């Protein structure tokens, strides 16, 4: 029991697996972006080199900052994503699932953004405080449509367990497809990709909340980004696209995951950045009504018993 728990946490769906898969996913993002821009792009292990290098650098703790939260905040993101990844992968792969694990995962997925906010606020730098402020505003905008879309999926599949979602793809119905589109846009913002990268705006805020971070603590944020690249699309695949299983199902799941990832990269590379207020308007007046329609359709379809609505 203890042995399998340790294995869960540190090897298979846990630390080693998320790191390795996250490094690959991050390379896919950079390589595909490079190909879209007619470049050659970085070598395969580039994200691993970046992190190894960051762990060899000096760790500067700025004067005038809140020291403890500055040190602890970067740990929150990887911790939350690690747990989310274990729950997601195990519920797909082994079918071990408990009632309400969707909600647990939704809460865990908030942690990376929250860690960026706390870290940015505790540096004592005005630019990073501004970045944290924008990150919070972005969170307020994308959480609403994401929760509505996931609620639609819950109504559609008829249960609060992740293992139920994988039985039949939710997106194979009108409400599921609408919810999937809304959730995809939210994931884009949650990953901090263009068009929703105002918090880290490189040209105005110089990296936003992370401006003061250096060395291993910055490396932890990079690790959190890598893991998010794995976990967030996997969440979408599980909830909307039917997840994956063992054997050939795992391959099919990997293909679905890659398709979602490439979709996200294409959106990232073909759009300009939105201002904070534009992003808020987009999510509240665009994506949230879409998700709400999906929810209403799902409820109506459930009441009158039509499968494809």
């Amino acid at each position, binding site marked *: 029991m203890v042995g399998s728990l340790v294995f869960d946490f540190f090897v298979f769906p846990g630390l080693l697996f998320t790191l390795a898969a996250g490094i690959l996913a991050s390379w896919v993002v950079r390589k595909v972006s490079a190909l879209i821009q007619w470049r050659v*792009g970085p*070598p395969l292990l*580039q994200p691993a*080199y*970046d992190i190894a290098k*960051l762990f060899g650098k*000096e760790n*500067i703790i700025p004067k005038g900052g809140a020291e403890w939260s500055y040190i602890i905040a970067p740990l929150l993101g990887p911790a939350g994503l690690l747990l989310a990844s274990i729950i997601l992968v195990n519920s797909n792969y082994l079918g071990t699932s408990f009632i309400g694990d969707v909600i647990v995962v939704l809460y865990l997925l908030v942690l990376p953004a929250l860690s960026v906010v706390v870290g940015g606020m505790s540096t004592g730098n005005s630019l990073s405080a501004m970045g944290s402020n924008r990150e919070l505003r972005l969170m307020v905008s994308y959480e609403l449509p994401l929760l509505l879309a996931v609620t639609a999926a819950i109504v559609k599949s008829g249960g609060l367990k992740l293992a139920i979602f994988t039985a039949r793809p939710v997106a194979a119905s009108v409400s599921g497809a609408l919810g999937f589109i809304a959730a995809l846009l939210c994931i884009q913002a949650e990953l901090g990709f263009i068009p929703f990268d105002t918090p880290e705006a490189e040209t105005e805020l110089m990296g936003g909340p*992370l401006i003061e971070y250096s060395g291993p603590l910055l490396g932890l944020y990079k690790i959190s980004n890598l893991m998010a690249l794995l976990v967030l699309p996997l969440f979408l695949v599980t909830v909307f696209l039917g997840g994956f299983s063992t054997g050939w199902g795992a391959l099919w799941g990997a293909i679905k995951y890659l398709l979602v990832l490439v979709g996200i990269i294409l959106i990232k590379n073909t759009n300009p950045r939105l201002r904070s207020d534009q992003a808020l308007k987009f999510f509240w007046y665009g994506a949230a009504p879409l998700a709400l329609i999906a929810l209403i359709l799902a409820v109506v379809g459930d009441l009158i018993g039509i499968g494809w609505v």
Partner: protein
Amino acid sequence: MNWKSWGISKSPWLYHVNTGSCNNCDIEIVDCLTPKFDVERFGGKLVGSPRHADVLMVTGPMTRKSKPRFERILEASAKPFIVAAVGTCACSKGMFHDAYNCIGPVRKVTEALDEEIMVLNIPGCPPRPEAIIDGLVTGLNQLKEVKL
């Protein structure tokens, strides 16, 4: 092989410091990031904060006004890092050799602050993007053997 310098040579994050250059060298540095030259092939990318920087790309002959700022950037950077002096001005002051308001070259200023800081000279007025990339890669390959 020293793993810290190996890490830097594998993923050099560039931070761009202008110490009074005529702006040509700066534009050539930005050229290195364009699709044609693509410095990301070697893991390099431009970062906005000296805390993230591994290579400080310094251009210009170091005017009197910019020296204190440059020294503050050196202090703010996370060690270990190296300095790359891009352009003849930064390497040897070039045409500003006898100018009263320039106290370069870059190596003189870094040595006055800290003997240990390594300076990589990339001459040219301005150096072509190929020359900048060539200088960086050559320098970083030699860096692997050095303990920072």
